[in-house]
C-alpha cells in the first residue's frame, strides 16, 4: 500500500496522468457536444481510429504536425457528417448507425493504412509533438513537471474544457445546441433549423473525437498500431454519463480515469508479481461500468437524446 502512496507523490505519475487524460478529454467533450444536441454518437470508437490513423499518416507522408491535427479533425467531421445524415436527416436508429460507423470507420482506417504501407512489418514511426516547458511555471516543484512540461496538444486539450463550457452555456449557439437536445420542436418554433444545429454539433463533436485519436499516435506514441483505441471511445461514452453532460465534470471524470490508468501501469511494476496484469488492464472498463451505475439514477438525460426530429411530420 505504501508503494501506491509513493507513486501518487511522484511527478512522473502526474505527468503521465495529464498525458493520458488528453485523448479522453477530446473524446468525452466530442461525445458530450453530440449528446447535448440530442444525438448519441457511438461512432466514437471508429472516429477515434480514423483520427489516429489519418493524423499520423499526414505527418508520415511529410506533412507537419499541426497540419496532421487539422487533417484528422476534418476526417472526423466527415464521418460526423455521415452520422448526422443518417441519424439527424433520415432519423435512423442512433444506436445502430453509430455501431455501423464504428465498424466502417475502423475497417477503412486499417484498409487505408495497409494500402499505403503494404510492406511495413514493424510499425514505422514519426517525430511526435515534443514537450514544451512553460517558462517560470515549469520550474514549480511537482506541478511544474506534471502540468507545465507537456506537449502542445495536451495544453490544447486542457484549454478546450473551459472553451466548450463557455460556448455551450454562454453563447447563443450553445443555447441552440442545448435546446436541440431538450426539445427540438421549441428550437424550430423559434425559427432555428434544428437539423442544421444538430448536424453541426455532430460534426464538431466528431472532429473532437478524431483529434483525441490523433493525440494517441502523434503526441502520446509515435506510431499507429492495430486495435490501438482499444475501447477508449466507449469509455468516453460512459464518462459523458458520469459527467452529467457537463464539461467541467467531464474533466474531473477523465482525470480520475487517467490517474487510474497511470497508477495501474506503475502498480504493475510494484505488485505485478502477485496480481496478473490483465486485472489492471480491466480496471478502466470495470470502472466505467461502475461510474455509469453510480450516476445512472441521479443524472438528467437531455430529454430529446435519441429522439429524431422530422420537420412537418404530422403526428
Amino acid at each position, binding site marked *: 500500500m505504501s508503494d501506491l502512496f509513493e507513486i501518487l507523490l511522484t511527478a512522473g505519475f502526474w505527468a503521465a496522468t495529464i498525458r493520458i487524460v488528453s485523448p479522453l478529454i477530446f473524446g468525452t467533450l466530442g461525445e458530450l457536444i453530440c449528446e447535448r444536441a440530442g444525438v448519441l454518437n457511438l461512432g466514437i470508437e471508429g472516429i477515434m481510429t480514423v483520427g489516429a490513423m489519418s493524423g499520423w499518416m499526414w505527418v508520415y507522408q511529410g506533412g507537419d504536425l499541426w497540419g496532421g491535427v487539422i487533417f484528422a479533425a476534418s476526417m472526423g467531421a466527415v464521418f460526423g457528417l455521415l452520422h448526422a445524415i443518417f441519424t439527424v436527416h433520415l432519423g435512423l436508429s442512433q444506436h445502430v448507425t453509430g455501431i455501423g460507423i464504428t465498424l466502417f470507420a475502423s475497417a477503412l482506417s486499417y484498409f487505408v493504412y495497409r494500402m499505403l504501407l503494404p510492406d511495413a512489418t514493424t510499425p514505422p514511426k514519426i517525430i511526435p509533438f515534443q514537450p514544451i516547458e512553460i517558462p517560470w511555471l515549469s520550474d514549480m516543484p511537482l506541478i511544474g513537471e506534471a502540468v507545465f512540461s507537456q506537449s502542445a496538444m495536451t495544453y490544447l486539450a486542457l484549454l478546450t474544457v473551459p472553451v466548450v463550457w463557455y460556448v455551450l452555456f454562454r453563447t*447563443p449557439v450553445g443555447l*441552440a445546441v*442545448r*435546446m436541440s437536445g431538450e426539445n427540438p420542436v421549441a428550437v424550430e418554433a*423559434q*425559427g*432555428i433549423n434544428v437539423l442544421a444545429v444538430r448536424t453541426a454539433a455532430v460534426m464538431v463533436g466528431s472532429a473532437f473525437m478524431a483529434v483525441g485519436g490523433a493525440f494517441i499516435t502523434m503526441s502520446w506514441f509515435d506510431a499507429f498500431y492495430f486495435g490501438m483505441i482499444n475501447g477508449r471511445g466507449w469509455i468516453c461514452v460512459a464518462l459523458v454519463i458520469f459527467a452529467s453532460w457537463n464539461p467541467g465534470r467531464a474533466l474531473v471524470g477523465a482525470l480520475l480515469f487517467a490517474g487510474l490508468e497511470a497508477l495501474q501501469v506503475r502498480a504493475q511494476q510494484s505488485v505485478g508479481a502477485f496480481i496478473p496484469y490483465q486485472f489492471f488492464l480491466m480496471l478502466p472498463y470495470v470502472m466505467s461500468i461502475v461510474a455509469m451505475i453510480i450516476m445512472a439514477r441521479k443524472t438528467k438525460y437531455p*430529454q430529446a437524446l435519441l429522439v429524431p426530429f422530422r420537420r*412537418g411530420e*404530422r403526428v
Partner: protein
Amino acid sequence: MANDAISLSLHAGEILALLGENGAGKTTLMNILFGHYRADEGSVLVDGQELPPGSTQAAIQAGIGMVHQHFTLADNLTVLENITLGTQSLFAWRQNQKKARAKLVAMSEDYGLVVDPDVLVSSLSVGERQRVEILKALYRDARILILDEPTAVLTPQESNNLFATLKAITKKGLAIIFISHKLHEILAISSRIAVLRRGAIVGSLETVVAQREQLAELMVGAAVARPKLTAIEKGKPVLEISGLSTQGTGATALKDVNLTIRAHEIVGIAGVAGNGQSTLADLLSGLTKRFSGSVRLNAVALPAGDPRAVVAAGVGRIPEDRHARGMVGEMEIWENLISEDLRSPEISNSGIIISSSKSKSRAERQIEEFDVRCSGPEAETKLLSGGNMQKLILARALSRDPTLILANQPVRGLDEGAIAYVQNQLLQARQRGAAILLVSEDLDELMSLTDRIAVMFQGQLSDPQPTGDQSIAEIGLMMAGQNSAALNEGRSLDH
C-alpha cells in the same frame, strides 16, 4: 385533404376566431402560416409582402408569433433561455443576458404576464407556461399572434384571465388568431369568426351577428346529435375506493381518495391535467400497486399491479393516449385486439402458441361489431384514423362486457362522428349495467354524459355531486383548488 383553397384576411387590433371541430384542418392551416408545413399551392401575405413558404424564420421576422397547443418549451432550461433562443445571431460571442432580462421584465409588467425569468420551465404550472409562450412571441415583436386551442389545458378561470390578457394585447394594435372548437369561448372573445370544415372555409361572419346554433351547424355540417343521458335505476356498488393514497408529495400523488360507482352509473372526474387523474387511472388499469387504502371491484380487492388480472376481473380500459399506450402501431389489427388476453384459451394453446385463426376470426367479428373501417384484421394499425383506432380500443375493452369501464379522455382529438359513436357506446354500456369512470378535461362533455361529477385537484378528489347541481363556474373554481364553500362566501359578498 387537410386544407383546401383557403382564403383568410386579418386586420390589426382584431381577434379572428378560427372555429372548427377536430381534424377540420385548423392546426394545419396555422402551421402553414408559421412555416412549419408547406402548402402545395397558394401564398401568405403579411402587410402586402409574400412570405417564403416553409420558413419559420421568415414568419417570425414578418411578425407572426405562435402559441402551440402542445407547448414548445424545454423543461430543463430557464424561462429566459427559452424566450431568448433565436433572438440573437447564432454566431455572437456572448449572450446579451442583462438586456434581455430587462426587456422581458418590462414586457411582462406591461402586459400583466408575470413570470420569474430565471426559474426552470419544469417548475412552472400549465398557466405559467402558457404565459411564457405568449411572452416568447411578444418578445420577438409579434404583431400577429396565433393561439392554437389555448384553453384546452386551463381552468375556466384561467381561461378568463387569458381572455383579459388577449384583449389588452389587441388594444396595443396586435392582431390575434384564436383557434378553438368551443363555441362559447369564441363568442366571448372574438370580433370575427371563420368556420373551417374538412379543410375549407364554410362561413365567415362578424361575431356580433353570430348565432350559436348557426355556428354549430356550420362547424359540423348536418348537425350530429350528441347522445344524452336517460334516467335509470342505479344498481349495486361496482367500484368502491376508500382512503386511497399513493406515495409522493407532488400534485399527482393521490391523497385519501374515496369514491363509489354503482352499476348503471357514470361518474365523471373533472380537473386540470396533472392533478392525479393519471395516477388514479394507472392504478385502476393495473399498472401500479403502490398505494394504501382499499380498492374493491364487485366486493373483491382489485388485483392491483397486474393488468391482465384487472382485465379478467372485469375492467374495460380506454387509455388516455391511444397512440402511446393503446395500440402498437406497427402491429396488425388482430394482434392488437388480442394483446390483453394473450394467454387465455380463446387465443392461445396452453398459453404458449398463439392460434392466429381463432384470433383473426374473433378480430373480424369485433371489427364488424364496432364498425372499424379497415381493409381487414391484417391491416397495419397505425394506418387507421384516430376515430377508427379508438373504435378498436373500444372493441378490445368492451367486447368482454366489463363491469367497470375506465374511460380516460375517450374522445380527445376525435371528429364529431367518432365522438358521438364513443359516447353512445359508453351510454349503451351504462344501460347494460356497467359502472363507468369518465376522466375528462372537457366540462361540457362531463355535464352532458355523467350522473355525478367529482373534481380532482392536487391528488384530492371532491365528493361527487349529482350532475347539474353545480354550475360550470363552481366546478372551475374547484379545479383551481378553491372549494365551493369559499365560492359561496364569495357569492354572499357580491350581494
